[in-house]
């Protein structure tokens, strides 16, 4: 049985004019000329106030008292706020956070108070005058310690928290959510397997490191309208959460407006709501004055979402012919102090922790553990990067143990269309085998290479990846489209241009349907008062979901255009078509009507009256085949994921045997985009995502001290790649097995490109040195130490 899709998107390969071309980004000129405006670039005039935040130095403590007297009297201070001003909870999937800490702080860096002043300097100086008395408690920093029965409770009221119905928190424990998958009979399969491998892999926390820090400006005007300009991936979700959290103050959705200009990178870190809610709340106390909160680089590291750490206990059983028969994956997630968003990372990983393989017997336990570290949350890859490290390392080890080529082993087990997924639904069409073969060919898999340098060795590695968008089953997208007098088009949507090229792709989709060139289409960034709804720009779903909404709006506009022509000239709608911005007719080759002649003013009839008028249209998309209702004990019965995007990554690297230094000589990455609406932009995602993934395994390393305080919250001590730290050669490979319900067959690729980067390095290091490293990052130091130990 395969999934049937409700909306069969039009896709006639050979006729495509705009879709499939490397169109120049519609935001390109703004960005290379300095014109592109980010939140911090907007002028708010002399009334602008600045806020500084007082943070907890302790990872776990009871707040005994807060003395704000001195700060209130300091020069330039307009208002000082604490948790008492806003005793309101908020959260994306589970309401477990407060705007400012109430009686406890649960991570080092948590916001305790805020100072609003006329200048940023005055705000910072006054914030230093606030005295907070704490009773320091013993922090829980390890997810397995948090899991232990005798562990202290980080959230004693967990049982009372509001959450989405597909979460299963355990009251009176630190388990905020437990996603279970039980399929087949794993115990029996392990007993009957020819070979079973069991091991533990560790993945630490990581930071997004968008170059633009979080920044938000909020203003409550004298008519009680709250406007928030913010660097966010989620304007509508932010409006919704602001309106809900601040409802006790009398706000409704129509009173709250979120405006999001360009953002300087997101990677998941600007999804949902984090620091922005402080700005929105503080503005309500200084009516008429805009308040800016801008995170420093340090705050950007420790008080936004971090990528969660995980301890992965993995057991896989295979037969001698290489068939995988069982997977048992137990994931202890270090989800941090608040899991309002991060628990869904845990959920997503639990649903898909077999990786892109056909597995008949599955036991997955994905455990969302509260710890006293900063809140975990969405990060490009959404849990998949984390569990793929162990899983794809394991697959190499199993192949070697049973004497099979690692690529052949993966090919044999690779999931294909129609295969049953862990939760009982079926796999969508996929080009996984093609991706494997093309990646292997690109790195000359199977051909041993030796180094000319006696101090270095060459290694090769392969790893596969898959990922589905993780979203509520009814997450939806919408679009408005209008023509202008000259036949140009304005489109409004509420997906965010994060850099991925979303606005350009939306323009290309509309261009394809309406034959208007991309450079005559403007697509605007969101303003929740004016742009139609979009859930969020996360999950690599907007090309697919928002793309469908734009495609539908364009189709509706085309129908309206044909209807006007029909009314005036009598041609049947189905005889009409568009070509080069004109309406043409199959039954009357002489008929040519340029769009610009009537899309605003309409067409005059022989009687002198007019027909038509401004062509406007809307489109929306919601997946109507998904549902998140599954049995909490088995995970069976629902259809939580819309589809998976798959692919493969391969590397050739050179390692210095003495120092452990790694040079990635060649990297290849194939991803099944379904259809590359803009191949340039898909390649951009492949190269950028791969380098970001390689950084997590080769360079980046988040360190905390014994008290749970982050020790390296800056770019000097937390190394992200520079222009020197990239592979010598990257080969991007686009596979196109169409997604039946995608716009022109497209599916998302944004997150996927970093998922296999870590295991592919671990596998290549093993291939080069025979050294298996089972904890990330795989740094130069770790390689050198492990290799040295192996030699002795």
């Amino acid at each position, binding site marked *: 049985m395969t999934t049937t899709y409700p909306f069969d998107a039009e896709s006639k390969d050979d006729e495509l004019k705009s879709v499939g071309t490397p169109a120049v980004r519609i935001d390109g000129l703004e960005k290379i*000329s300095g014109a592109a405006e980010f939140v911090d670039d907007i002028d708010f005039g002399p009334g602008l106030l600045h806020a500084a935040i007082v943070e907890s130095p302790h990872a776990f403590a009871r707040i005994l008292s807060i003395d704000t007297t001195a700060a209130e009297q300091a020069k330039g201070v307009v208002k000082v706020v604490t948790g008492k001003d806003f005793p309101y909870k908020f959260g994306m999937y589970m309401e477990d956070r407060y705007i400012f800490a109430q009686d406890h702080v649960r991570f080092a860096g948590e916001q305790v108070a805020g100072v609003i002043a006329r200048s940023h300097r005055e705000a910072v100086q006054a914030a230093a005058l606030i005295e907070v008395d704490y009773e320091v408690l013993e922090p829980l920093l390890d997810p397995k310690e948090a899991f232990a029965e005798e562990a202290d409770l980080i959230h004693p009221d967990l049982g009372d928290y509001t959450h989405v119905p597909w979460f299963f928190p355990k009251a009176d424990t630190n388990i905020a959510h437990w996603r279970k998958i039980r399929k087949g009979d794993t115990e029996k399969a392990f007993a009957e397997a020819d070979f079973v491998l069991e091991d533990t892999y560790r993945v630490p926390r990581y930071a997004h490191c968008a170059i633009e820090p979080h920044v938000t400006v909020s203003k409550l005007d004298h008519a009680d309208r709250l406007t928030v300009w913010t660097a966010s991936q989620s304007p509508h979700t932010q409006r919704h959460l602001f309106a809900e959290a601040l409802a006790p103050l009398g706000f409704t959705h129509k009173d709250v407006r979120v405006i999001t200009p360009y953002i300087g990178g997101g990677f998941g870190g600007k999804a949902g709501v984090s620091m922005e809610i402080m700005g929105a709340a503080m503005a309500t106390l200084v009516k008429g004055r805009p308040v800016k909160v801008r995170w420093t680089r340090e705050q950007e590291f420790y008080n936004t979402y971090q990528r969660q750490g995980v301890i992965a206990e993995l057991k896989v059983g295979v037969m001698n012919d290489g068939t995988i028969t069982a997977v048992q994956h137990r994931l202890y997630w270090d989800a941090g102090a608040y899991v309002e968003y991060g628990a869904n990372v845990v959920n997503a990983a639990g649903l898909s922790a077999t990786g892109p393989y056909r597995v008949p017997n599955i036991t997955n336990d994905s455990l969302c553990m509260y710890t006293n570290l900063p809140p975990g949350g969405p990060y490009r890859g959404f849990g998949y990067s984390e569990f793929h490290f162990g899983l794809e390392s394991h697959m190499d080890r199993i192949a070697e143990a049973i004497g099979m080529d690692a690529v052949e082993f993966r090919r044999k087990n690779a999931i294909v269309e129609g295969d049953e997924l862990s939760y009982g639904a079926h796999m969508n069409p996929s080009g996984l085998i093609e991706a494997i073969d093309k990646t292997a060919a690109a790195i000359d898999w199977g051909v041993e290479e030796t180094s000319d340098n006696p101090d270095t060795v060459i290694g090769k590695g392969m790893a596969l990846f898959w990922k589905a968008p993780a979203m509520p089953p009814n997450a939806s997208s919408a679009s408005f489209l209008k023509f202008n007098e000259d036949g140009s088009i304005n489109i409004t949507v509420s997906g965010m241009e994060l850099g991925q090229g979303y606005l350009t792709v939306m323009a290309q989709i509309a261009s394809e349907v309406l034959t208007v060139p991309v450079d005559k289409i403007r697509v605007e960034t969101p303003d929740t008062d004016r742009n139609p709804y979009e859930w969020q720009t996360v999950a690599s779903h907007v090309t697919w979901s928002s793309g469908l909404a734009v495609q539908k709006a364009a189709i509706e506009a085309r129908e309206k255009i044909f209807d006007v022509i029909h009314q005036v000239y009598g041609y049947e709608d189905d005889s009409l078509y568009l070509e080069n911005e004109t309406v043409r007719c199959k039954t009357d080759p002489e008929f040519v009507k340029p769009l610009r002649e009537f899309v605003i003013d309409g067409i005059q009839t022989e009687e002198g009256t007019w027909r038509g008028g401004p062509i406007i249209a809307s489109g929306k998309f919601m997946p109507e085949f998904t549902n998140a209702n599954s049995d909490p004990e088995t995970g069976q019965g629902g259809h939580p994921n819309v589809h998976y995007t798959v692919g493969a990554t391969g590397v050739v690297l050179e390692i210095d045997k003495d120092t452990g230094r790694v040079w990635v000589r060649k990297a290849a990455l194939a991803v099944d985009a379904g259809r590359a609406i803009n191949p340039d932009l898909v390649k951009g995602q492949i190269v950028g995502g791969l380098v970001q993934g390689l950084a997590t395994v080769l360079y980046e390393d988040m360190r905390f001290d014994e008290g749970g305080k982050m020790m390296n919250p800056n770019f000097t001590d937390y190394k992200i790649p520079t222009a*020197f730290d990239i592979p010598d050669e990257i080969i991007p490979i686009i596979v196109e097995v169409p997604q039946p319900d995608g716009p022109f067959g497209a599916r998302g690729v944004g997150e996927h490109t970093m998922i296999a980067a870590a295991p592919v390095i671990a596998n290549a290091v093993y291939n080069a040195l025979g050294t298996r490293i089972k904890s990330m990052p795989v740094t130069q130091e770790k390689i050198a130490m492990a290799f040295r130990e192996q030699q002795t």
Partner: protein
Amino acid sequence: MEVEIKVNGEDWALSVAPADVLLDVLREQVGTKSPKIGCERGDCGSCTILMDGRTVRSCLVLAVEAERHEITTVEGISFEGLSPLQDVFLSSNAFQCGFCAPGIVLSATELLEQNPDPSRHDVQEALAGNLCRCTGYEPIIEAVLEAAKGGSA
């Protein structure tokens, strides 16, 4: 105190405090917003500007140090249309979010002025002080090499 600074060809007399950094003064008093605030400690390069034709991180320069110097930002090099380098950046879709772009355009402009025929290594070295989290640098490096091939910046 009063300082005189030339910004993109225009003379400015600005009243600044001794501790004011040039980046903030450019953004808040001159209204030149292309140099961005990314780390405020010279790590990320998004505040890169040209001071007398040489790149500096404007977050590490005090406004008073810019007295009687000539500052150029990316707005300043775009007045009379895009440079050939910007043209290649645009046509090759070299940037993504664009936050680092103003700094990188200036670093690459400086490179091509000093070395019209750079190697890949030269380009990497010139850009090593400008962090970009989106692109993986490859399309940017390729665009600079292509611009060099096509003539001067």
